[in-house]
């Protein structure tokens, strides 16, 4: 079924807007630049294109208008009538006709001017031709401006028309104004129609939908009809008349029993009779409304008579249709929309009547046969008269009955929940139905995690056995471990040894550190030599401490060190004398060395050294004479050089060359020699002559005698200059010969 929808008609622009739209489009969509220097064909083409484009657009738009507006001949007569009632058929057709002519005119104009443009000889001429063409088209449109406006209005109104499907099941509600049609409509459908106390509240048709027996019914609410001759009716009433006339629907004629609509039953009856011709072939139901104000039984005799008359008319229609005389209740119904009393009954009755009528009609029509051919219910052909009902086994029947009983008896969890306080208070025990070896275990809680392990990973039926095995193994292993450990101990260091080791390591580290420091600073930084002792750390106390930590008795070393150092005070020497005890040499030797020391002031010393011939214990020599001899033996060539005879100056020179130590050493040597058996008078005398001796302190030299002991090799005779190379080696008597 075509759904009549007038909402899809495009907007009809008014004349001015129409022109504007088309012209601007032309300007935008066609090329705009042209110069008079172009070739003439190009110019002509340019302007022709514009004219044609404009004409095409006009044609398109006007065609859409003409096509979209419905043609009254081609639509359902209901709509045709409705549109006629609303908008006047003639005007409508005229307007559309004008649009059509406009379209044709514009085509003609375009054609003509294109023909002219073909022969335009200059830009100006072509341009003016184009201007003329467009101008004429626009005037045409301007002339049909009012039609366009009219059509636009119609379009807007049509869009608001209710979409009534003329072919479907429809229920039509009619009657005088204010009888309760719209309120009934509101009750049975979802339509929200205005219900007001004044007449003609409903000014046009309203559609609602309702359902009955799985089918959808249209319910059409009409404006009230007054009892007037046909010609005098206004548009609004004509709407409802049209609907009544053309729609194949069930008609509900509303009757206001109470008369509160302002019209008496007589008037309403009169209306009924005047339009009863419209109720031909339509299931008619007379509905007495507003029974809450006035029940049907309470009306006057005359009214009752009128009503009965109407009923008979309605009955006629019934009889006229189905052939079966309906019961009377199907024709006259009472209800009250206010109390909703009987509303549904009315609706049902109307729907039922309509449905029956439609089915009847369909049955009679050819289509029905086509449908019927498609249905077929297959039944097995009975071969004898024996009854064969369906066979249900006894057990199933019993089970069914039992289940039914159980359903009633069993207490559900929901009931339990409700008993114990409802959903928020009671929580069902999920462990209730567990199947376990003992029922006491049902509520047991087993921890899932223990000490960083998952308990479920350890569960095993024979865990005890395995555990026992494991423990046995462990016992064995432990015993082995102990045995092993026992063997191991014994090689450890004792605590004292560990102490010693720690000390050793410390000392080693210290040495390494010092060495590294020394190594790194040796070339870069000048270091104060140790003998200056700027930090005053080389003291005897320190030495004593160090020696005692090494396990030695430091007292001896301290004494020695102190005795060796230069005395600062007189008391010191006295002390030392006391302290020395038995560990000293000959007193003379001591004294002598002291004298010699005092003598050697020609050269200042920061520290005085003992004479070379002084015996130091530990060297392995017995006395100073021995020491002197040893020196002579080792240093004889040097001595020789010192004393070789040249002229005095040379000798002196030579003597000066040797260090002070050598000189004093020579003295001490000779002093020693003097006190031994070796006679070195001559030597001494000579030395006296040669060397500047200090006046004091020297011992008196004995008279010089030519030494007989001295071998001729020791000293050459005067005054020959010895030849060094020929000088034989000095051979002294061996030291062991001396006491």
């Amino acid at each position, binding site marked *: 079924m075509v759904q009549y929808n007038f909402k899809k008609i495009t907007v009809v622009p008014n004349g001015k807007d129409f022109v504007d739209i088309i012209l601007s489009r032309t300007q935008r969509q066609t090329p705009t630049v042209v110069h008079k220097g172009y070739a003439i064909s190009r110019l002509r083409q340019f302007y022709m294109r514009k004219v044609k484009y404009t004409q095409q657009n006009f044609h398109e738009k006007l065609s859409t208008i003409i096509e979209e507006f419905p043609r009254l001949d081609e639509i359902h007569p209901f709509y045709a009538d409705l549109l006629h009632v609303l908008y006047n058929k003639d005007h409508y057709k005229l307007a559309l006709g004008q649009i059509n002519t406009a379209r044709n005119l514009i085509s003609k104009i375009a054609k003509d001017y294109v023909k002219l443009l073909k022969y335009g000889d200059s830009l100006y001429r072509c341009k003016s031709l184009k201007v003329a063409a467009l101008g004429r088209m626009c005037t045409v449109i301007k002339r049909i401006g009012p039609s366009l406006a009219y059509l636009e209005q119609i379009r807007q109104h049509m869009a608001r028309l209710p979409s009534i499907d003329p072919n479907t099941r429809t229920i039509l509600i009619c009657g005088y104004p204010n009888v309760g049609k719209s309120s009934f409509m509101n009750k049975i459908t979802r339509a929200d129609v205005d219900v007001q106390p004044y007449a003609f509240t409903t000014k046009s048709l309203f559609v609602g939908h309702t359902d009955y027996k799985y089918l959808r019914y249209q319910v059409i609410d009409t404006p009230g009809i007054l009892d007037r001759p046909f010609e005098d009716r206004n548009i609004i009433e004509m709407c409802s008349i049209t609907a009544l006339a053309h729609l194949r629907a069930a008609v509900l004629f509303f009757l206001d029993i109470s008369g509160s609509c302002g019209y008496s039953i007589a008037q309403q009856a009169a209306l009924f009779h005047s339009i009863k011709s419209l109720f031909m072939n339509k299931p008619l139901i007379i509905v007495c409304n507003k029974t809450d104000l006035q029940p049907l039984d309470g009306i006057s005799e005359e009214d009752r008579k009128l009503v009965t008359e109407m009923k008979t008319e309605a009955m006629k229609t019934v009889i006229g249709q189905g052939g079966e005389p309906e019961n009377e209740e199907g024709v006259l119904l009472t209800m009250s929309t206010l109390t909703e009393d009987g509303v549904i009954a009315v609706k049902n009755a109307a729907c039922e009547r309509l449905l029956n009528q439609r089915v009847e009609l369909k049955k009679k029509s050819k289509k029905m046969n086509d449908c019927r051919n498609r249905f077929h219910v297959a039944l097995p052909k009975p071969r004898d008269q024996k009854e064969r009902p369906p066979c249900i086994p006894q057990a199933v029947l019993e089970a069914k009955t039992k289940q039914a009983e159980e359903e009633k008896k069993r207490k559900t969890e929901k009931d339990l929940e409700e008993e114990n306080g409802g959903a928020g208070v009671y929580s069902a025990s999920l462990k209730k139905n567990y199947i376990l070896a003992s029922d006491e275990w049902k509520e047991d809680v087993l921890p899932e995690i223990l000490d960083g392990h998952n308990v*479920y990973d*350890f*569960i095993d039926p024979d*865990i005890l056995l395995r555990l026992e095995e494991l423990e046995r193994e462990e016992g064995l292993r432990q015993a082995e471990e102990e045995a092993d450990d026992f063997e191991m101990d014994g090689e450890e260091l004792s605590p004292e040894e560990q102490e010693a080791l720690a000390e*050793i390591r410390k000392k*080693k580290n210290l040495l390494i550190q010092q060495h590294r420091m020394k190594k790194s600073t040796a070339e870069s930084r000048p270091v104060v030599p140790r003998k200056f002792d700027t930090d005053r750390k080389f003291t005897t106390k320190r030495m004593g401490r160090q020696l005692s930590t090494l*396990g*030695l008795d430091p007292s001896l070393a301290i004494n020695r060190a102190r005795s060796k150092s230069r005395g600062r005070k007189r008391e010191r020497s006295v002390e030392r004398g006391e302290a020395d005890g038995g560990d000293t040499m000959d007193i003379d030797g001591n004294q002598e060395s002291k004298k010699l020391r005092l003598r050697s002031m020609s050269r200042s010393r920061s520290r005085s050294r003992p004479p070379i011939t002084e015996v130091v214990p530990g060297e392995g020599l017995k006395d100073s004479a021995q020491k002197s001899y040893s020196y002579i033996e080792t240093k004889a060539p040097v001595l020789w050089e010192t004393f070789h005879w040249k002229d005095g100056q040379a000798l002196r020179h030579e003597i000066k060359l040797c260090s002070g130590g050598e000189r004093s050493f020579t003295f001490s040597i000779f002093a020693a020699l003097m006190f031994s058996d070796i006679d070195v008078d001559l030597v001494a005398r000579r030395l006296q002559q040669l060397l500047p001796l200090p006046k004091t302190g020297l011992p008196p030299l004995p008279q010089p005698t030519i030494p007989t002991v001295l071998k001729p090799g020791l000293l050459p005779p005067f005054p020959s200059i010895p030849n060094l190379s020929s000088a034989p080696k000095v051979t002294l008597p061996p030291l062991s010969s001396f006491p």
Partner: protein
Amino acid sequence: MRIEKCWFCSSTVYPGHGIQFVRNDAKIFRFCRSKCHKNFKMKRNPRKVKWTKAYRRLHGKDMTQDSTFEFERKRNRPERYDRNLAENTLKAIKKIDKIRSDRASDHIKNRLKTGKVQRQKEARKQLEQGIHLVKAPLALAQDSSLHLPKIKVNVSQAQTEENRPMEE
């Protein structure tokens, strides 16, 4: 609720900790903390990262094979609850744990034993060779043990007199 193992460092991941990463091939990687997660994202191999259990096991630092590991196995079939079994299991877990940790520590001790022996030998040698730095040969001759020498302190008369009042 299950305790899982971190994929990277193999430590235990308690519920509510760490991050789980599911790769497109549906393999799940669980991490105990962002350190492991970030290491994983850097594509580091846990077998090469020193502080992980995987490294330690691979390089023999920790115990790898032991019968105590057999006790803890993920079982997919649930057992029917039995109170006695549950009790025994809980007690057993503690014992097994103790045994396992003992064995692990023994393993480490054994591993370190050779080093210890070597160090002791070295120490002894060092002591013997270096005793001359702390003990004079004279002292060593007198007392041939390898201990530090006793320091002799001179006690003067004055000191003994001072002590007397105390003795009284």
